[in-house]
């Protein structure tokens, strides 16, 4: 997993609420047995027209909207537990998703893949949408160490929450399985206590 420190990037705006995992990656593209190659089908049904050509109306197909941060409406990632949704976002190049609310399983899946979910207030989110709509070139800065997100050049800053364990994992590119494997003795002792 890649280490995460500070991110300074333009953002891609998806101003819809309840963006579900079936939109992020439709089920018909879940047939792979590896973790790669999901980027092509990220937001598949919004991104392409019926004839397979890119829909110029959709944000990922617009030149002005490039960046490593996705900014989306409330309740992002609801629906299925498919980690393919997080893989597709990471594969495409996103390093963080900003929303005012994340579905639980998605949040875990994102963190397990080094994708930082930044939960902001509805107010902050609304202002980001408003400003970036007019000035897509403005940059968001996400500082994990200080747990701070700001819109560079505008006096718009907010702190976000992340537990210190997950923060440590992200900063060091460390994953949960390493942690759990180190706890094997305790796990076996637990099993024995039940017997």
């Amino acid at each position, binding site marked *: 997993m890649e280490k995460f420190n500070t991110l300074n990037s333009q953002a891609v705006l998806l*101003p*819809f*609420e*309840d963006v*579900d995992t*079936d*939109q992020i990656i*439709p*089920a*018909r593209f*879940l*047939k*792979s*047995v*590896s*973790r790669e190659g999901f980027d092509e089908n990220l937001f598949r*049904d919004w991104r392409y027209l019926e004839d397979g050509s890119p829909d110029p109306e959709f944000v990922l197909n617009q030149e002005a909207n490039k960046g490593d941060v996705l900014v989306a*409406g*409330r*309740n992002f990632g*609801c*629906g*299925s*537990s*498919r*980690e*393919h949704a*997080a893989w597709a976002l990471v594969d495409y190049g996103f390093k963080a998703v900003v929303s005012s*609310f994340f*579905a*639980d*399983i998605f949040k*875990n*899946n994102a963190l*397990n*893949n080094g994708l930082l979910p930044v939960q902001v207030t509805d107010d902050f989110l609304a202002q980001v949408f408003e400003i970036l709509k007019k000035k897509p070139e403005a940059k968001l800065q996400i500082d994990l160490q200080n747990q701070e997100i700001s819109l560079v050049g505008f006096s718009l800053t907010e702190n976000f929450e992340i*537990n*210190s*364990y*997950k923060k440590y994992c992200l900063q060091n590119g460390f*994953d*949960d*399985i390493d*942690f*759990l*494997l180190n*706890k*094997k003795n*305790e*796990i076996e002792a*637990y*099993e024995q206590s039940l017997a």
Partner: protein
Amino acid sequence: MSAKTLFDKIWDKHVVHSVEDGPQVLYIDRHFIHEVTSPQAFSGLKERGIPVFRPEQTIATADHNVPTENQHLPIKDALSRHQVETLIKNCEEFGVELYGLGHPYQGIVHVIGPELGITQPGMTIVCGDSHTSTHGAFGNIAFGIGTSEVEQVMATQCVLQKKPKTLKIQVDGKLNPGVVSKDIVLHIIAKLTAAGGTGHFIEFCGSTIESLSMEARMTICNMSIEMGARGGLIAPDETTFEYLKSKPFAPKGEKWNKKVEEWKALKSDPNAQFDLEYHFKAEDIEPMITYGTNPGMGIGITKDIPLPNGKTASGLEKSLKYMDLEGGKQLLGHHVDYVFIGSCTNSRIEDLRLVAELVKGKKKADHVHAMIVPGSRQVEKQARAEGLDKILEAAGFELRQPGCSACLGMNEDKVPKGKYCVSTSNRNFEGRQGQGARTLLASPLTAAAAALSGKISDVRELMKVEA
């Protein structure tokens, strides 16, 4: 000791270790896996050169992408076939029991766990599928996980989780005729919204819930996730024990008696505090149907579709546009093209019986494609033994072989673009049943009624005619 909820009791008993300002290491009693969310986890183990830590606590089946006809033939779709074959190989290599295609126990993972008695009260259960919440009907903690977590459980029989908050949903009173458990849960989600339970684990209780069969309880717990909750559980009682008693993997003899004694203690203490509580009255619930593109967008069948107003505008307008429906109008009488009865929400024998009883001696509307996909081989066998297949086929319903099928449209069972499908599944997301498909979630009764009349109908009208 302070009063505890049932959820807290089970959770706390399974904590192996707590990370400071972080998650807890939660021990998992049963791990279900399937072909779609397991291959990358097995690859992870291979890369690390480690085995499945407790293979005897892991159970596999093939359900998500399997065809629902000619299951004895090789799967036509090359990618699906590869995924299923990968599962077979991985299970062999890692010593995991597989109830694959052709096995008498094969079926949708959340249908087979309970019907085999693998799912039991007091356990922790996970699966790489969000509707793992279904198993909670037996009074256990069951929740869906992502593939990285599947790998964690394979490697260590534990998962790192932050403890969710608790939410109590109490439903009291007697249900109206024509109203079944699917309507209860759609009613609750419509009230609390698709995100209303986020961060929480639900306990369903109250006289209405207690009066339900195990299968009906499973339908309710199944859809806990559709209000954003991690899962939902129901305290076990005599109904639970009665259901489990004869199941193949339930404890037997003296062991059974001991277990039942243990299970009887599985309830929330009388003064236990929940973080959040809601109460509902059974009398207020009508047969339900959804009009939008998340399960929270549901109404009583006789009600009007809400009108977009300033507040909800973006989501609702977008949904109605996708569904090609108009706010302020009724859904009753709206044209229907497909009816799908199946999925881990409503594909059990009681669901099939309910449908068969309603359609017996009648015929579906000519223009409607009506598909019934049993949840498991055992359900299919039982349906045939009871002669339900004959009744259903005579009414023009096609009884297929078990799998997830049109619930997520990973196999051939898809709803074409722009078509309306009344479905007993759990998600009406854009494109869920096929690209451009328009899904209206409802109970098996309401779905069957739509198939008979060819339009959205109030099943109570049909029942009245009979009475």
